[in-house]
């Protein structure tokens, strides 16, 4: 595995239930995603996109296989650490369909919450948060509450939150689902720019084929297996 690898998956399988209710969602998936890549993950509804995302994100336990985040092997038929949440906190950023910002925290506090949990210096984490807000052109909104921002602004804050801890990978679950076409394109362009500039691997689940041209690679789940196009 070279230094450029952000995610490596080997023979990853996931099934639910047993007997008559046994369902296999992912079967022997193997792939590598490099730093700086924006990868689109597409599949029909119920095809296992979110499940794959959750397995890479150390949320859902795979049935078998191996996962590496950067150079660290985190799963080998079992979690190799009992602190998967610490891995998520330090190495993974999440973006959701809706912004899912904490409604009772203002924008700057939403961004510095995770660094605080990582015991990062407050001054440093605020500086980083302000830098991101400036980057996303919402620097004047740091004391605003999420309810006072538009959908697009909130989604930019959500992206900033995913990046505030300098993650190695960002997992985005249909980040443009709640946005109109123009804003969706804007968000995907931002993700592409971030991936390139910050050398972060971004896996983006999407249903919208119009977003695919902006992505570096397209990962498709077809009949439980992963195909790159």
């Amino acid at each position: 595995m070279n230094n450029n690898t952000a995610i490596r998956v080997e023979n990853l399988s996931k099934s639910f239930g047993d007997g008559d209710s046994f369902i296999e969602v992912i079967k022997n998936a193997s792939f590598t995603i490099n730093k700086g890549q924006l990868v689109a993950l597409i599949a029909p509804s119920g095809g296992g996109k979110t499940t794959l995302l959750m397995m890479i994100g150390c949320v859902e336990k795979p049935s078998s296989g191996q996962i590496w985040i950067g150079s660290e092997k985190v799963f080998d038929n079992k979690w190799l650490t009992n602190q998967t949440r610490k891995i998520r906190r330090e190495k993974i950023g999440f973006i959701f369909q809706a912004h899912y910002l904490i409604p009772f925290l203002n924008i700057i506090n939403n961004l510095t919450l995770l660094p605080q949990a990582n015991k990062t210096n407050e001054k440093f984490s605020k500086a980083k948060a302000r830098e991101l807000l400036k980057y996303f052109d919402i620097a004047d909104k740091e004391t605003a509450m999420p309810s006072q921002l538009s959908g697009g602004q909130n989604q930019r804050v959500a992206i900033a939150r995913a990046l505030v801890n300098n993650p190695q990978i960002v997992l985005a679950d249909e980040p443009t689902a709640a946005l109109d076409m123009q804003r969706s394109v804007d968000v995907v362009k931002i993700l592409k720019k971030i991936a390139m500039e910050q050398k972060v691997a971004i896996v983006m689940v999407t249903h919208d084929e119009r977003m695919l041209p902006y992505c570096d690679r397209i990962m498709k789940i077809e009949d439980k297996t992963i195909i790159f196009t």
Partner: protein
Amino acid sequence: MIHLAKEDVRHTLGKFIVTAMGVGMLLGIVLIMMGVYRGMIVDAEVLLNDLNVDLWIVQQGTLGPFAEASRVHEDLQYTIKSLQGIDKTCAITFQNIQLPGNKGKVRAFAVGYDVYGDINPINPARLIAGRPLSSDHYEIVVTDKTGFHLHDRIKLGRHIYTVTGVTHGSVTSGGDPLVYISLKDAQELQFSYSDKRIQTDRARGIINRDAHMVNAIIARVKQGYSAVKIAANIRKWYHKSAYTRKQQRTVLTRNVVEKASKQIGLFTAILIIVATIIISLIIYTMTLEKMKEISIMKLIGLPDSMIIRMIVEETLLLGILAFMFGNIFSHIIYSKFPKRVVLEIPDAWMLFGVIMAASILASFVGVKKVINADPASAIGG
């Protein structure tokens, strides 16, 4: 440093305060209940303390006028006074009466005493207007709670009584106001019959001997003598029951107030349990409202400790605020209660401790929800 509980409370400040006020009112009632009990004890001891006597001599086999009927002859006071070690004595009667007030009958507890005797049961410190009784007949000293004023004229039995003095804070253990009349008037009120009955009794040759009965003889002991020993002596040689002041206090608190205090104690305990359940339900609902955020916090990697801290701090804050509102509420309304309510600081601190413990207990329901929250539920629809 982000303080999650503080930020969450600030976000829903109005709702949080109204909730705390609601729980606070419940706690205020708990404080009032405790105050009613304390008031009952204070009231029960008013007459005992005002009389300030060392011995109570009552009918043999009875507990005395506060607990049950007792009759002894008034002359017993002279016999008792002749005993070695006795300084002063007084024959005394107690009876419930109804005073005809402007707004209907006023229930009162009348103390009858020998106006020219050794012991005056009216505590001078309580007299806020007028003077104690100075005549054997048709004078009455009332408590301000009865609604009567100085020089008011009150019809009692066959006669009109004039209010010569007004006291403040003189009540019985039941909260009834005390009034004071002369022993002769009290005996007439208590033991005299209707004209027809007297006529009939005379025709039958029956003489009303009850007119010189009293309910108790009270006595003060000379310095250097033991009230316990004198009481034992009276019990042995005079076939009466005799109680020291401590024993009479026990009779009052154990026999008269104990059941009421148990009842109030039970009410208080139930209210505290109800308050705990309500706080638990509020915290549970507040946690349920935040489940999406909690799942997201867990998903993005926030440790459980941070989220649990938020829940526990909010619960404790709710408890503290409710306690403060409860205190304010109880202090606003306690004077409106017809019976004496004594709010004591140690009781408030005890309730504070109980509420803090109840809040911690209540926070467990929220903490359990946090621990069981599935971070994966944050993703998808």
